[in-house]
């Protein structure tokens, strides 16, 4: 009886859910759609199929340079943020510490402060300290944004731990360091990989920090932003954007699968 009444709203809700997913996905699909259109104008009706915009990317030196910049920054950001995330997540889940909650909240703060404020504040301090803007300063900004995500992902991973594994290792004579390397780290691996992939993607796609903290040698999103001023280059931007979307989708789907799939498999042990 109860089950049936709960189910009565099913069909209109399912229809709504489908429409909502359409609202989420369809706008983004316009980018790849027009990137194959044989016209420099982004409008209907479609003129014809072309791969010209994709082909032109290959020889575009500034684009390739920006791509390399983004990859460097994203790799550095993902590594640093994940290491910092491991430290912090391990600390708060493993040890009982009075006053750790406000500290965790402080680390999570960048999630709820507008990026423009974090970015300009960092810019002020860097310039006052006599620093110069470079990929390094962009990386600093990205680490600030990524540590909360890394920590959140890893905390849920560490919380589901079966502590007896580590105890068994200690009982069998391994010291704390080897226990960490041979037991803790392998168990945390799915979370660590998920954190790395998430941070990589966030950094790779991030615009505001790179816009404020970058030099004239831009990352890919800033490069795209600069291209938007030239209408004739829009199809090229669309092709580039479509490539980025496809790669991001796969990387994130993998990260989510690792994170959620793995955390649900350990939840039975709690």
């Amino acid at each position, binding site marked *: 009886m109860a089950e049936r009444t709960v189910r009565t709203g099913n069909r209109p809700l399912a229809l709504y859910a489908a429409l909502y997913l359409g609202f989420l996905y369809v706008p983004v699909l316009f980018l790849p759609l*027009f990137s194959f259109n044989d016209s420099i104008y982004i409008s209907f009706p479609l003129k014809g199929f072309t791969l010209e915009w994709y082909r032109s990317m290959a020889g575009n030196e500034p684009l390739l340079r920006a791509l390399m910049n983004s990859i460097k920054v994203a790799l550095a950001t993902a590594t640093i943020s994940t290491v910092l995330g491991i430290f912090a997540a391990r600390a708060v889940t493993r040890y009982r510490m009075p006053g750790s909650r406000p500290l965790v909240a402080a680390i999570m703060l960048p999630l709820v402060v507008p990026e423009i404020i974090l970015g300009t*504040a960092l810019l002020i301090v860097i310039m006052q300290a006599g620093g110069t803007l470079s990929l390094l300063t962009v990386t600093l900004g990205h680490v600030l944004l990524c540590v909360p995500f890394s920590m959140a992902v890893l905390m849920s991973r560490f919380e589901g731990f079966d502590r007896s594994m580590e105890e068994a290792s200690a009982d069998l004579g391994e010291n704390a360091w080897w226990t960490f390397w041979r037991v803790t780290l392998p168990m945390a691996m799915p979370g660590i990989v998920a954190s790395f992939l998430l941070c990589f993607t966030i950094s790779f796609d991030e615009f505001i920090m790179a816009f404020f903290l970058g030099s004239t040698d831009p990352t890919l999103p800033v490069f795209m932003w600069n291209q938007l001023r030239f209408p004739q280059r829009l199809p090229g931007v669309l092709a580039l954007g479509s490539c980025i979307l496809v790669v991001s989708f796969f990387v994130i789907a993998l990260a989510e699968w690792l994170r959620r799939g793995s955390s649900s498999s350990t939840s039975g042990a709690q």
Partner: protein
Amino acid sequence: MTSAAGTVEAPPTSAWRRLLMRSEALRGYLLLSPTLLVMLGIMVIPMIGMLVLSFWTQLAGTTFDSTFTLKNYADAFTREMYRILFVRSLGISLVTTLATVLLAYPMAYFVAFHVKRHKMMWIILMTLPFWTSYLLRVFAWKIILGYNGAVNSGLMSLGVIAEPLNFLLYNPTAVVITLTHAWAAFAILPIYVSLEKIDRSLVEAATDLGDGPVMRFIRVVLPLSMPGVIAATVLIFIPTVGDYVTPSLVGGTDGYMISNAIQFQFARGNNWPLGAALALSSMVIVTAIVVVYVLLVRRLTARIG
């Protein structure tokens, strides 16, 4: 779970145990310190730097007069241009937050209560777009709503309209639509989590006691999902007030927000202290609104419960 943390490996004597407990906290702080130090360096110190700078005056180039002044705040709060931008930013964010939460709630409800199999796939499907480039998602709306964009050229080639509609892009509505799309995941996830946590037997009890679907929803499900709704509104309202990309790409001059003024002061305007004052003022205003809102909602739901 937390109480089990140190007890298993602790040897029998209580003095030893106390020491271990004390050193346990110490070890925890030690392990936490690298992350805390980095966050101190790239978040706390910059915020303090911004606060200090907001009381200074810009001289020529990149030099500052460091005598204390409140002039930047006076400018931020009295100049009409900034007042318009503050009010507009808050208004746009408010409407965006409302729209995002209202649109996302049924979706989250559907997945929490009606999806039985492949729940994980649904959750990933709902959150996947959020992880892709923000810039590209906003840019997509520029393509869709533009004067020669997808909607206009599509309707024209179908013969529905003869002239492009020029009210689609470059106004606050375009900003709201784009933001509602861009921040959807921030509403879906918290609401879904709080709906998922609801004990199903409570819903069944309400049914057994004679509540119809509507009353059951209003009296049981909605109050219990309020934590998720509150989290969603806060998570969307605060960042969208300071959003820069969306108003820049789809807002036009009528849709410019406070972040455009902040960016201007740090770039061509070359008045960093004023930019800092504007940034901090918007943050204080938003925080105040959020605190009042959370307190009000808590009191309200406590009364209903």
